[in-house]
């Protein structure tokens, strides 16, 4: 049976967006390599800081912390993929084809989602193989990774669709990425942050990602699922915002 028009379009758009990402592999490669380097360099520091909780606590902190921080920084890959469609004036060219807006958005997000999933899997695997990270519930952890990737994808889509230039995007990712990572307890354990920062931490999606990942690694289903629910909600809200902004069109934007 011949594939439907929708299937043909989805295949063409998926191939197209994957090609676009692979033609500029630098940002993706750096986001894949840097967390591994940082884990190796910072692990002794974390082991020392969390010595009274045991070696495993330090390993969990450094692996999940670097995972959250560098996945936040990887948002730039997702957001840039969307923003460049505006700067190249290609988005309206796609909108003028028979493709649905949903098809355009989904296939635009797909390579970014794949990259985020690969990055997180790679970091976790590295923690297991190189430093003996013990994962009590791999399925729960996979669900946590999935929900965090969805939240990241939504945030990246919303930023890419809302911000007006590459410099604004870079600023948002650099400052926002580090800020949300630090506030979420990815850089240093929450317990050593000032009290006001601990109180503000739940504002950061990074906090919920750290909570979901740590709980999943420890096999604590309740806290993990609660944190995952927050991440999925963040994904839903930010994706809706990005989709609304994109489907309204920006052909006559004077900012680019």
């Amino acid at each position, binding site marked *: 049976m*011949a594939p439907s028009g929708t299937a043909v379009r989805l*295949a063409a*758009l998926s191939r197209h967006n994957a090609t*676009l990402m692979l033609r500029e592999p630098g940002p993706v490669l750096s986001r894949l390599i840097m967390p591994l380097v940082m884990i190796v360099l910072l692990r002794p520091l974390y082991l020392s800081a969390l010595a009274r909780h045991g070696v495993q606590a330090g390993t969990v902190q450094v692996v999940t912390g670097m995972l959250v921080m560098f996945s936040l920084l990887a948002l730039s890959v997702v957001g840039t993929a969307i923003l460049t469609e505006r700067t190249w*004036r*290609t988005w309206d060219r796609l909108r003028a084809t028979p493709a649905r807006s949903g098809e355009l958005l989904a296939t635009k997000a797909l390579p970014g989602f794949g990259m985020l999933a690969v990055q997180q899997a790679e970091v976790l695997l590295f923690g297991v193989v190189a430093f003996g990270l013990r994962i009590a519930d791999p399925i729960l952890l996979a669900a946590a990774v999935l929900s965090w990737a969805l939240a990241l994808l939504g945030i990246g889509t919303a930023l890419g669709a809302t911000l007006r230039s590459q410099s604004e995007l870079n600023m948002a990712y650099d400052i926002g990425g580090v800020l949300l990572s630090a506030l979420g307890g990815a850089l240093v354990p929450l317990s050593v942050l000032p009290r006001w920062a601990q109180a503000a931490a739940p504002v950061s999606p990074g906090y919920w990602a750290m909570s979901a990942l740590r709980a999943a690694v420890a096999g604590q289903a309740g806290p993990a699922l609660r944190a995952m629910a927050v991440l999925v909600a963040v994904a839903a809200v930010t994706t809706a915002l990005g989709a609304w902004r994109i489907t309204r069109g920006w052909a006559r934007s004077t900012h680019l």
Partner: protein
Amino acid sequence: MSRMQDGGPTAGLVAGGLVKRYGRSAALDGFGLSVSPGEIAGLVGHNGAGKSTFVDTVSGLIRPDAGRVSVAGIDALAHPRQARARLGVCPQETGLYPRLTVGEHLRLFGALAGLRRAALRRAVDRVAEQLCLTDVLGRPAGLLSGGQRKRSQAATALVAETPVLLLDEPTAGADPQTRQALLAVVAERAAAGAAVVYTTHYLPELEELGATLAVARAGRIIARGGQAALLSGLAGTVNVRFDGPVPGQLRRYGQVCGVTGDELRVATSDPPATLARLLAAGAAPVSIDVSRPGLDDLYAALIRDSAPASAALPG
């Protein structure tokens, strides 16, 4: 060339009463344009006349506040996706992916238009050959010359044989080779039955294409019809230069444009007849320059005073 996807009496493009307002200004203010299958409609007008807004509206990029659009018999406002499947759109601003090759662009837009496998390969090869792109199919768009980029952009709109084409200034800034290649393909598509809207500031192109005319101003069409009908009644000029002052008996011919030293300039709706009368009256010129009214004259006349001109010209 194969038959177009749609045909019949309801095909082509029909748009009427389109209104699009941005705050207090109207980009479209009752814009209406119908183009029959096989017709090339040259859409001309100053920047801001509403040409590109009209193209964006038919393409489904802009939702009008009022009006109706039918593309190959499909109500484009009620069924925008089905209508877009019957449209080939070449926007005014170049939109290509710098790191994708020309071939990848053509395969993408061909696939999005529903072409697959062998049909897609044939369509890509054909349009690449027509627009002199065969040698650069493997070259990234970011490395193309300006003319190649123009042709590549147009090729993405032409790769599928859609029954309606919207070409928004496809030759703006293009070199002669690009211009000729594009005009040839547009003429061929129209001959095969496509309804073509061709916006441009280069009026001689429309003469070359044998296009009907639609003149836009302030968000509406102020004149519409065949070139011959619209040009009839417009003045051409006869310039006659003498070896010395203009003979006195001929000065009465120069009432419209006047006499300056050794040159007599006459504005006339029938330049050959006027010249014949001048020669019969004893003129012995050293040089004669006869110019018939052209699209530039029509355009200038309409834009100078749209209300009387549109009333006087066939619509």
